[in-house]
């Protein structure tokens, strides 16, 4: 869902996008991966992304995965949902990282552990590839009412509170 919101935001800025998740077999809990491609030209590849420009990690537990950064492009950006700051460069390839305690922000703003929109805000801030307002103006396509308002706030806080480090 977050990946789709991101995609919508890019479309709003005139880009082509293609975004898809890979589901695990399990109902929930197991890592689910979503890929989003953005380009000025139409996107034709229909594969997973092996060398991403940016990696967003919702579950800090995944940091334990040794293969987490495999393929991340040099100059790649890493966005992490975590209460803890990164004390060292997680991967040598990694030049920019943005950490935000999205879970906490979400719990505070939305009332539930749905950190996704917050991370979108952090993404916009850390990468600079996208304007915050593009994201904000996409959310009404996906959410409405009170929940929308809360998520708008959560996104904004993500944008503001993300801590960006250049390694």
């Amino acid at each position, binding site marked *: 869902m977050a990946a789709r919101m991101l995609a919508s935001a890019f479309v709003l800025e005139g880009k082509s996008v293609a975004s898809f998740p890979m589901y695990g*077999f*399990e*109902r*929930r*809990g*197991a890592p689910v991966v979503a890929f989003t491609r953005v380009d000025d030209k139409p996107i034709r590849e229909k594969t997973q992304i092996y060398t991403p420009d940016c990696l967003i990690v919702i579950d800090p537990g995944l940091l334990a995965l040794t293969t987490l950064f495999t393929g991340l492009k040099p100059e790649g950006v890493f966005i992490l949902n975590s209460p803890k700051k990164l004390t060292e460069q997680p991967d040598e390839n990694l030049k920019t990282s943005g950490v935000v305690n999205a879970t906490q922000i979400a719990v505070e703003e939305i009332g539930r552990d749905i950190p996704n929109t917050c991370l979108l805000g952090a993404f916009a801030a850390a990468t600079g590839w996208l304007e915050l307002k593009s994201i904000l103006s996409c959310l009404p396509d996906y959410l409405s009412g009170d929940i929308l308002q809360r998520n708008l706030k959560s996104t904004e806080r993500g944008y503001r509170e993300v801590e960006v480090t250049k390694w």
Partner: protein
Amino acid sequence: MVEKTKKKSRVFNYFCEEDQFAGGVAWCSGCPLELTARFVPKVLGKNVVFVGTPGCAAPVLHGQNVGAWHRLAYMASVMTGVPSKATGLSRYYRRIGQDATVVCFTGDGCATDVGFQPLSGAAERGEHIIYLAYDNEGYMNTGNQRSSATPLGAATTTTPVGKIGRGKTTVSKNMPLVMLMHRPAYMATATLSHLEDFAKKLVKAKEKVKEGFVYLHVFSPCPVGWRINSNMSIEVCRTAVRTNYFPLWEAEDGKPRFTVEIANPKPVAELTKLMRKFSHLKEDGLAELQKAVDERYALVKNLCDAYK
């Protein structure tokens, strides 16, 4: 300080086996289905052979490559083949004198819909199998779509609420009574708030399956799909019993009797307010649902009374 009685619940006495499942299995937090899956082999023992199918219970039945979620023998199946596969197993095990309790473990969707025909057929043939349907009133694994067991008025992803839509427009298939009319050797309804009741029924099921077909219908709310707070799912089970929404009874050789009788049933609104799948219902909607509940309860009661 409160006086401690230090007496463990009697339910523990029904256990003859350790938990057969891995510690961490992918059921949603607070889901009574997880409790059901873990509870059943604890009472039925190691020689349970599960037959199952896609659905939230898939961990009961589908491993992943060489890995499995539990330590029992099992056979995975397409949704259309569960009781027939159980028939094939049970017939052969009995023939060769192999001790086995063959248990079909499926959701209501499989039991009442796409897998109903073979279930009915196996019941008619009196196969020596236990069919346990956990009833979460919909297809949960695929995302909370309606099944035949979805109640009147409930909002699901295929009976959504909208400008025109008002949830499901028909009452649910009365599966326990439909199965009673198949006259199984034994059948029972059960739920997770009443664990001793459930355990007793499992013990009886294991006994009576030697004589023929056994059907167990287990009310198993889905915290995610019904939108229940995860800590309240057992309370929902309890309230379903107390409102007569889901009466607890059993039938040996076709003769039904209540195992739990409710002196002063609460209105069904007590149940519906615990979840959000009914939250769009206005008074008339609730009244209709209450009527359906009363009618059904009266039917079971009549039958129970007749066999008293």
